[in-house]
């Protein structure tokens, strides 16, 4: 591992943080007030980490800008600056900008001049909010300085209410460590040195810890001091005085005019002393008046009541002996929470190639296992067969488990569109909600990677063209806010992803007229409704009367279709005028496991996805009828169109006397597949056929059987679609 590797880790991590920040920012607007603090804290933390780690690597371009964003987020977290849609938009732009800074830094080692200019412009915008929230106390003037010196501007009171203690002196509480003498430290020398940077107004020596003479160890230091110190030095300068002893000693420094709450914190932090005792000491040395102490203790009591369990927890944190049942319960609850989080976090990144390699090896293992089992059966050794069959069960479980490793939920892909929809809605002056369902639907990682672009085109198109303007919606009596829906589910061994809108819907007549005008469809050519809708995905087709700069001139929609076909999938469009449009992408689950039903035709074996199989019946040629080149049988009074696999795929070899019909259902229609043999169920791993077989229809992939042979998987949907099309074409002729 090296510095470069760590830097690489930083870039990856920063991007993740920024993605998280974006997601949280988008959530703010839809959130309950109680959830807000945690969300703001998470956003703050993301910015904070991006900045903090950038500073470790000296990436000033990122640090300087992010620091300002972090400041504003800190103020929002404290409630000083309120959340507004404008502010969220600004923060989203800032988040984009930080991402750009990260990208540029990774690519070129520094941020570009353009980005520096944008940084400054955004800082000005951020400054407006910082000023608004903070009044006088905020320090935005020296903003881009990464705040390295911020600490020196110690805690002056942030507001002018009478919470402030009337004390113009610093207050220093000193408890020297037991070993101070042994470490060669002389407490008095520190006090003397203090005089160099100010005046000690009052000093109170505390000897509360002096033991009885019998226990007294002259080498131990038992001293404590409370000091009122008049100085113009900064807190850091005062702290530096005690630098050599601060590891072992207890040192608290309060600024002049500190707030009462700071004194309360001081009182509370003195773990070994009772609150009352500290309070008295403070009065004694003149840091607090009696009235102020009374108020402080009252405030503390109120706070204690409000949050008793937390308070108790803290006390116990300091002293094990005072364990109480309340804390037990709290601790238990904490353990439960910890377990839950632990579970959530037990994930690790693995290189996808390594996973693929593992899956292949496991697949091979299963095949080898099946071969060995076969040998065992030939040998007829019962014990061997028994143990091999156990081994095979385990191997299959192992294969299933390893395959699941590659499956990822589509949710992350979907949620990226929150931002897209939000930004577009703002640009187009529309009100749009994005409804996501089926986010848990799992699909193969390789599919997830490729589906992003097509979905982007569809979502943009739906917002831009699908949804009407607010005025149009109002006129139509529809809710002003349009809805874009993203949905995913598994169906018949496919994964279906839907992009829907509740907009104006598609007008088939208009589309057809336009397609004829453009020469895409012949004048007398008749098309079904579905085919007409399909035209909108053709190259160069656009129905938008007003071409907007967002989804362009229909460029993109044909890309969707092409990408989907490349993934061996297909598209479907449903639409009703005035009600909306749903575009469905139907993809095969490449590399997914499906339960298959194996059928034999000639010497070849084909796999039918089990979930489309309805039943199997015996085939009898006597019962079949033919019409328009399509054969049918009568299945309990219903007409069942047949696909003869032997003919369809040109399989050679002798036709057996007895054949079977596998009744499958897809696209809402039942079809019978005529096959030679039924070979039973088999859980199969889909292997994509690769680029050479692009465009091969009726086959959706392949799989490796127990014998090691490759079997082809039938694309039942595709076959059915061809039948329905063929039927219609035939009818038209």
């Amino acid at each position, binding site marked *: 591992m090296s510095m470069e590797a760590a830097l690489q880790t930083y870039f990856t991590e920063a991007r993740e943080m920024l993605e998280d920040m974006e997601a949280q920012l988008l959530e703010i607007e839809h959130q309950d007030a109680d959830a807000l603090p945690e969300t703001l804290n998470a956003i703050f933390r993301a910015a904070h980490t991006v900045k*903090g780690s950038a500073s470790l690597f000296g990436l000033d371009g990122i640090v300087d800008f992010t620091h300002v964003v972090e400041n504003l987020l*800190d103020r929002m977290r404290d409630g000083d600056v309120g959340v507004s849609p404008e502010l969220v938009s600004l923060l989203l732009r800032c988040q984009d900008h930080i991402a750009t800074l990260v990208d540029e830094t990774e690519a070129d080692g520094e941020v570009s001049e353009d980005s520096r200019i944008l940084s400054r412009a955004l800082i000005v915008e951020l400054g407006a909010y910082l000023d608004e929230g903070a009044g006088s106390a905020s320090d935005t003037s020296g903003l881009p300085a990464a705040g390295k*010196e911020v*600490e020196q501007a110690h805690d002056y009171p942030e507001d002018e209410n009478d919470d402030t203690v009337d004390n113009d002196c610093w207050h220093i509480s000193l408890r020297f460590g037991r070993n101070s003498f042994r470490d060669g430290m002389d407490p008095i020398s520190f006090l003397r040195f203090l005089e160099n940077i100010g005046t000690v107004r009052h000093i109170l020596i505390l000897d509360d810890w002096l033991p009885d003479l019998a226990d007294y160890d002259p080498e131990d230091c038992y001293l404590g001091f409370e000091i009122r110190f008049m100085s113009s030095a900064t807190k850091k300068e005062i702290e530096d005085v005690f630098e050599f002893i601060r*590891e072992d000693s207890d040192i608290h420094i309060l600024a002049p005019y500190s707030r009462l709450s700071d004194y309360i914190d001081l009182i509370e932090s003195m773990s070994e002393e009772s609150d009352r005792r500290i309070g008295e000491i403070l009065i004694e040395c003149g840091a607090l008046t009696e009235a102020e102490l009374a108020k402080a203790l009252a405030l503390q009591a109120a706070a204690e009541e409000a949050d008793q369990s937390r308070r108790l927890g803290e006390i116990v944190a300091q002293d094990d002996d005072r364990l109480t049942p309340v804390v037990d319960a709290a601790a238990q609850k904490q353990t439960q929470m910890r377990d839950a*989080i632990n579970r959530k976090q037990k994930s690790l990144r693995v290189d996808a190639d390594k996973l693929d390699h593992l899956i292949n090896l496991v697949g091979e293992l299963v095949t080898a296992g099946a071969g060995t089992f076969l040998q065992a059966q030939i040998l007829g050794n019962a014990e061997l067969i028994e143990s091999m069959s156990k081994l095979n069960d385990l191997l299959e479980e192992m294969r299933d488990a390893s395959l699941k490793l590659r499956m990822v939920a589509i949710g992350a892909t979907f949620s990226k569109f929150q931002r897209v929809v939000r930004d577009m809605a703002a640009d187009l002056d529309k009100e749009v909600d994005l409804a996501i369902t089926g986010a848990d639907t799992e699909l193969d990682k390789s599919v997830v990677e490729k589906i992003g672009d097509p979905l982007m085109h569809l979502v943009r198109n739906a917002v831009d063209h699908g949804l009407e303007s607010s005025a149009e919606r109002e006129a139509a009596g529809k809710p002003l806010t349009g809805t874009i829906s993203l949905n995913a589910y598994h169906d018949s061994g496919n994964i279906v992803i839907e992009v829907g809108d509740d907009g104006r819907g598609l007008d088939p007549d208009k589309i057809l007229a336009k397609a004829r005008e453009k020469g895409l469809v012949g004048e007398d050519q008749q098309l079904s409704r579905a085919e007409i809708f399909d035209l909108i995905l053709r190259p160069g087709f656009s129905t938008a009367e007003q071409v907007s700069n967002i989804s362009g001139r229909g460029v993109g929609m044909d890309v969707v279709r092409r990408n989907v076909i490349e993934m061996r999938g297909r598209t479907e469009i449903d639409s009703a005028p005035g009600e909306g449009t749903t575009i469905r992408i139907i993809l095969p689950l490449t590399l997914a496991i499906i339960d298959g039903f194996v059928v034999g035709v000639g010497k070849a074996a084909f796999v039918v996805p089990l979930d489309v199989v309805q039943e199997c019946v015996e085939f009898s040629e006597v019962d079949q009828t033919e019409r328009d080149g399509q054969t049918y049988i009568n299945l309990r009074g219903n007409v069942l169109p047949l696909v003869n696999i032997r003919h369809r795929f040109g399989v050679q070899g002798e036709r057996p006397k007895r054949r079977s019909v596998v009744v499958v259902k897809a696209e809402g229609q039942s079809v019978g597949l005529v096959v030679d043999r039924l070979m039973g169920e088999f859980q199969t791993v889909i292997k994509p056929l690769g680029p050479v077989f692009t465009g091969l229809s009726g086959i959706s992939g392949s799989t490796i059987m127990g014998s090691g042979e490759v079997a082809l998987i039938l694309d039942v949907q595709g076959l059915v679609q061809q039948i329905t099309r063929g039927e219609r074409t035939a009818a038209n002729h």
Partner: protein
Amino acid sequence: MEKTVMIVDDSASLRQLVVLALKDSGYRVVEACDGVDGLSKLDAGRVHLIISDVNMPNMDGLTFLKEVKKRPDTRFTPVIMLTTESAADKKDEGRAAGAKAWVVKPFQPQQMLAAVNKLIQ
């Protein structure tokens, strides 16, 4: 004997830097991504020193520190808190909860090594 240092921080790159800073001096470094993770990893074996960030998801650094001080096996394990300039109040809080020292981010690797050496030897 090889000493083990635990770094608890939600930033993987920061953790990597700490590992870089310490491993050449013969420290073994255990990484944890937040307080919860840190506590579970403390169960796994003896740690001689803990470096912990303050602001982390799931369990922040101060809560973590308090938990560490509660456990009999880690009560006396020195803890270095990592803070930023803007979190000065957290320093005091950390001190009160038993942190031995703090290192202000951003730090140089040598600074971190020096702080660790000082506390552990």
